[in-house]
């Protein structure tokens, strides 16, 4: 992804009124819902601090907690696999599906499976894969990509959803959300009846007990982990928390941050496969722990990015995300967290993303685990500084040189005043050179006649 193609994509994105209207509405609604629900939460700041502390502690001691988690999963009858990268994760999951002759996979929403492009791999291995989260289901039937980590079809309006469903399910066109949901539920019930493989991510993996925690709103998550005979959970190695008692700290924050709900509608805890005498649950449980660059990130310039619990609050709060939508980032992880995570996970082709920010900090204020995203964005900008265009580097170092010479700086103020065109009222409407990009969008006031330093010399300094 070159700077050039990024610019072209941004130009398209900021002009796509239909998408932006949908994204504006949805993100503001969530920002306001989040604020309202946090206002009801006693000791919210203390909880955020505690959550950040737990995340930091866990990642500082990750090998120990991963070992504990793996041992407990195995003790509960599950199997643990470790995948270094995306390809390894897909291979492990496809192999175990093919060896058991599994045909129909149901998935509950998982960003980690998006990250490794698991659906394509499973389909190539001959399985049929059905997304069971409503939003992800619509993405899948519309051959689209999610544009938000929690609300995958935030960029679509109900007309587009209605059209996609009518085409894919052969049903009557409707825009009524209740009717749309009913149609999808009916369709998915049949899929759930026939599926033999359930694939999930996990919001948290609890080291103390080997438990997977899934938070969902539609009930599809628990059907995915109970109905098929094999359950595979793919989770990034950073998803571990130490103890069961740590979980409520995150549960109190997660749904409030995502949607403003006090809790997700369904919180599912899975410890091992079905035990003798139990009525439901899979015969086999496989937990695949994915590294895919995370160990490298832990020892890099922005390890705090792995504290993220994927709530999406930073996307909702971000004025840049609100004005370009998620697709413009061209990464599985969009928004402020994606602008930090994508270059770290995927490398230099994403290193311009951290510059797509006014550093307003709305993301950091919304983050339930207090990740200082603007600070991380600045750190990544510093890392890619030498690869910035020559013209920009020259301009910035020339400007810094000027600022080290107060007399030349004062002279440049006068020059700016003399050289800027004036529309007759003290404003420049169109200029050439480095400020052309300013006046492409806004007027520029001509520097006041008499800078402050001149004013000081002439009349203000009498006292001193």
């Amino acid at each position, binding site marked *: 992804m070159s700077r050039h193609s990024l*610019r072209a994509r941004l130009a398209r994105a900021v002009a796509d009124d239909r998408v932006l209207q949908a994204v504006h509405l949805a993100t503001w609604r969530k920002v306001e819902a989040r604020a309202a629900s946090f206002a009801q939460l006693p000791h919210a700041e203390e909880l955020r601090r505690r959550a950040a502390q737990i995340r930091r502690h866990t990642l500082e001691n990750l090998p120990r907690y991963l070992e504990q988690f793996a041992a407990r999963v195995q003790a509960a009858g599950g199997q643990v696999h470790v995948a270094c990268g995306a390809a390894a994760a897909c291979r492990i999951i496809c192999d175990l599906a093919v060896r058991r002759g599994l045909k129909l996979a149901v998935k509950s929403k998982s960003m980690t499976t998006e990250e490794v492009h698991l659906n394509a791999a499973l389909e190539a291995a001959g399985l049929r894969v059905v997304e069971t989260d409503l939003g992800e289901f619509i993405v899948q039937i519309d051959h689209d990509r999610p544009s938000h980590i929690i609300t995958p079809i935030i960029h679509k309006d109900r007309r587009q959803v209605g059209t996609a469903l009518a085409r894919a399910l052969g049903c009557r066109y409707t825009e009524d959300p209740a009717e749309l949901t009913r149609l999808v539920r009916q369709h998915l019930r049949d899929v759930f009846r026939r599926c033999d493989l359930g694939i999930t991510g996990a919001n948290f993996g609890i080291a103390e007990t080997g438990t997977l925690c899934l938070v969902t709103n539609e009930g599809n998550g628990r059907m995915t982990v109970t109905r098929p005979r094999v359950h595979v959970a793919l989770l990034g190695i950073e998803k571990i928390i130490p103890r069961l008692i740590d979980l409520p700290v995150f549960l109190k924050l997660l749904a409030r941050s995502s949607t403003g709900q006090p809790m997700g509608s369904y919180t599912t805890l899975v410890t091992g496969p079905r035990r003798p005498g139990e009525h439901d649950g899979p015969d086999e449980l496989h937990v695949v722990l994915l590294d895919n660059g995370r160990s490298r990130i832990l020892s890099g310039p922005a390890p705090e990015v792995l504290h993220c619990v994927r709530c999406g609050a930073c996307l909702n709060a971000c004025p840049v995300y609100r004005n370009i939508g998620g697709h413009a980032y061209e990464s599985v992880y969009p928004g402020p967290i994606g602008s930090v995570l994508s270059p770290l996970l995927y490398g230099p082709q994403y290193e311009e993303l951290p510059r797509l920010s006014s550093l307003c900090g709305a993301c950091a204020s919304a983050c339930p685990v207090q990740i200082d995203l603007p600070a991380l964005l600045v750190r990544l900008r510093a890392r890619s500084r030498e690869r910035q265009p020559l013209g920009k580097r020259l301009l910035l170092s020339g400007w*810094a040189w000027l600022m080290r010479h107060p007399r030349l700086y004062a002279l440049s103020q006068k020059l700016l005043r003399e050289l800027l065109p004036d529309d007759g009222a003290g404003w420049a409407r169109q200029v050439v050179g480095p400020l052309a990009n300013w006046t492409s969008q806004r007027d520029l006031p001509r520097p006041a006649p008499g800078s402050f330093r001149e004013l000081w010399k002439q009349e203000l300094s009498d006292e001193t």
Partner: protein
Amino acid sequence: MDVALFVTCLTDTFYPRVGRATTLLLRHFGCRVHFPPEQTCCGQPAFNSGFHREAACLLRRMADVFRRYEHVVTPSASCATLVRRHGPELLEGTPAAAAARSLAANTREILTFLRDELHVDISGLLRLDEPVTFHYPCHARDAYTLDDLLGWLVGSGGRDVRVPRHPDLCCGFGGVFAVEYPELSAALLHDKLDELVATGAELVVCNEAACTLQMAGGARRRGLKLRFKHLAECLAESLGLLEPQA
């Protein structure tokens, strides 16, 4: 009390009246004001762009320029934050580290300096005789809260303070971002201006020169009737230190 004014490059160049208001307020409340003329820029645009060598160099200069002063006061909260929060980080481990730390400790944004050091109740002194709305600058966060700003405005003087729907929404300036991604910066700006216009007030209190440059430039391009003032200007006018400006 001796106070050095750190006027900031944008205020110096584009908004000298804000510098004047700041000076007159400090004098009014009993300070002797000094203006070290070697001051230029604190390096914030370079820092935010990841040009940390340049930023460190400018910050080292600033620490040197202001080393004689125990109190350094600026009308810009974002420049104060650069100096107070990022300065010591940037120069850590260099010979200028101690100077950066002392500049950080000595530097204050004007409104918080009036409140915390001079114990002035701003809201009691402010007279606003027209409907007013405001912008809470993102980088004021380390200096004063949204509630602080609202408190100053709605104190005895602000009878008709119109709160925008999201008063802390970013104006889209972001330093180099504004010229590097102008369309995107402008998209943010339009959201901001729409909210300000919706309040029906024409006077906007904005205490950050960079945000004012962005919002006033955008408002003028769109032909909107918005005027922008720093709270220091409003206060200096209320106290009769500055001629009111329409």
